């Protein structure tokens, strides 16, 4: 059994799962006693990444009528928090249209670090500095 404080939630990539998944993350962050602003920023970023999975990950091909969504959060030994949002769909590269594309921008504004891995689905890896 892993000794670190960790949350992992898997669910279908559908919009109605995003809010409860975010609430579960909020409870986990409360357990870790992070302050309110930090908790809100982390859940905001995770909410954006999860919304992207619902909106984009399975938009191409639609072989899987509803794909899967995974949220992972982990307290790192240096006190930072890592949050990954993972899907097994296909990342869609595009230039940002003027009136949208706020999701990644918001994530970049709050996460200390953001890595987007796009082999074998998409993995949005965020690290937060409390």
């Amino acid at each position, binding site marked *: 059994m892993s000794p670190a404080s960790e949350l992992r939630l898997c669910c279908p990539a559908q*919009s*109605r799962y*995003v*809010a409860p998944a*975010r609430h579960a993350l909020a409870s986990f962050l409360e357990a870790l006693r992070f302050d309110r*602003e930090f908790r*809100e*920023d982390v*859940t*905001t970023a995770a*909410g*954006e990444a*999860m*919304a992207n999975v*619902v*909106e984009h990950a399975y938009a191409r091909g639609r072989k899987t009528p509803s794909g899967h969504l995974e949220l992972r959060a982990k307290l790192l030994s240096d006190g930072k928090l890592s949050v990954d949002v993972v899907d097994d769909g296909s990342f869609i590269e595009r230039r940002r249209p003027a*009136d*949208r594309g*706020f*999701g990644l*921008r*918001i994530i970049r*504004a*709050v996460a200390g670090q953001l890595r987007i891995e796009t082999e074998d689905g998409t993995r949005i890896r965020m690290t937060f500095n409390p």
Partner: protein
Amino acid sequence: MNLGDPPIYTIRLSGELEIGRKNEIREALQVSEDSGAVLLDLGEVTYADSIALTELLRFCVGAQRDGLPVALVIRTPQFARLVEYAGLASAFKIFNDRAAAVEYLAECLRR
């Protein structure tokens, strides 16, 4: 809801404005024909995401095109920060107090 004369049309949304409520948000963001100005009362929004923000932006851009002044009431810190993070602070006319928003809209209508 119509307030005073000339008419200020109020749209009130509360709770979590997020992806699961996208259609509901879009439907709520409709104005009646005779509105002179629109007050978006979002003071009780406990959480908002970029999907809600995009809907709000579309509404405001459309209203501006129609010459309709719009004021937003935002009180909750998460929502206020979200607008900043998205770089949209100057895209909206935001107040943290309903009275100030009404005052602003009345001023717009007097012009």
